[in-house]
């Protein structure tokens, strides 16, 4: 375990949230707009090859924010396209992100079964 990784994770993860908060407070964009925007931005940075470098540097600081979802979609599509051609864009799309989507659906479903809405 490297303490440096934790420092960068904290700084980068915090910076993502900070930017989101500033956009939320200073503009008319809703949380949904901001999170969608982050995902698109992560996808573009992933396509340019910059996001993987951020992951190497900051670990979870880069993999935890939602921008990572956009990056992971792009990496899945590109890596499968490298193996199988254009069709790989479709087949590889969810290769890396299926964990997150599946977890959200399964846990979301069972939590909704067990708990009742508050208030």
């Amino acid at each position: 375990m490297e303490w440096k990784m934790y420092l960068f994770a904290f700084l980068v993860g915090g910076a993502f949230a900070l930017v989101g908060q500033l956009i939320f407070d200073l503009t008319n964009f809703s949380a949904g707009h901001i999170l969608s925007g982050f995902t698109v931005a992560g996808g573009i940075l992933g396509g340019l090859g910059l996001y993987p470098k951020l992951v190497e540097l900051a670990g979870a600081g880069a993999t935890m924010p939602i921008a990572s979802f956009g990056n992971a979609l792009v990496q899945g599509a590109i890596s499968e396209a490298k193996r199988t051609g254009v069709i790989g864009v479709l087949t590889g799309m969810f290769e890396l992100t299926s964990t997150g989507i599946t977890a959200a659906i399964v846990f979301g479903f069972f939590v909704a079964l067990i708990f009742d809405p508050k208030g």
Partner: protein
Amino acid sequence: MPRDPKKKPLTVEQKRYTEMVRDLVPKPPYLRNALLAFLFGGLVAVVGQLVTDIYRLTMGLTAKEAGNPAVATMIFIGAILTGVGVFDKIARYAGMGLAVPVTGFANSVVSAALEFKREGLVYGVGSKMFILAGSVITFGVVTAFVIGLIYALFII
């Protein structure tokens, strides 16, 4: 929201009223919100890093492979915290600090599922679960499709 420019112009009274309201409405404490978001966003990332390292060291995975179960674990934590009603209480202070990481994705799925539970398991929980998180998936996939296509056609 910005005003629709096609609507007829404001009367003098309306203008004066808008200015009055604008001055009276309290401004959000930008600095405090930004600092709290930074702290909580950083904290979630540190917890995520810890979980990643635990998977990496106990299951003999590479850092890249350990990222996926770590994301699932954070989604699990976010989902449970939302279910017991703690998430909203923390999010009141943390703001985007909890919304920007995957915990926010989990929260948007679970809170929608809970909100529409009374409409039944199929049309409520089943269909409306992604009423908030759906836009993130849609825009993410469309972006990735366009970039992937450019890559496949012109770069590879």
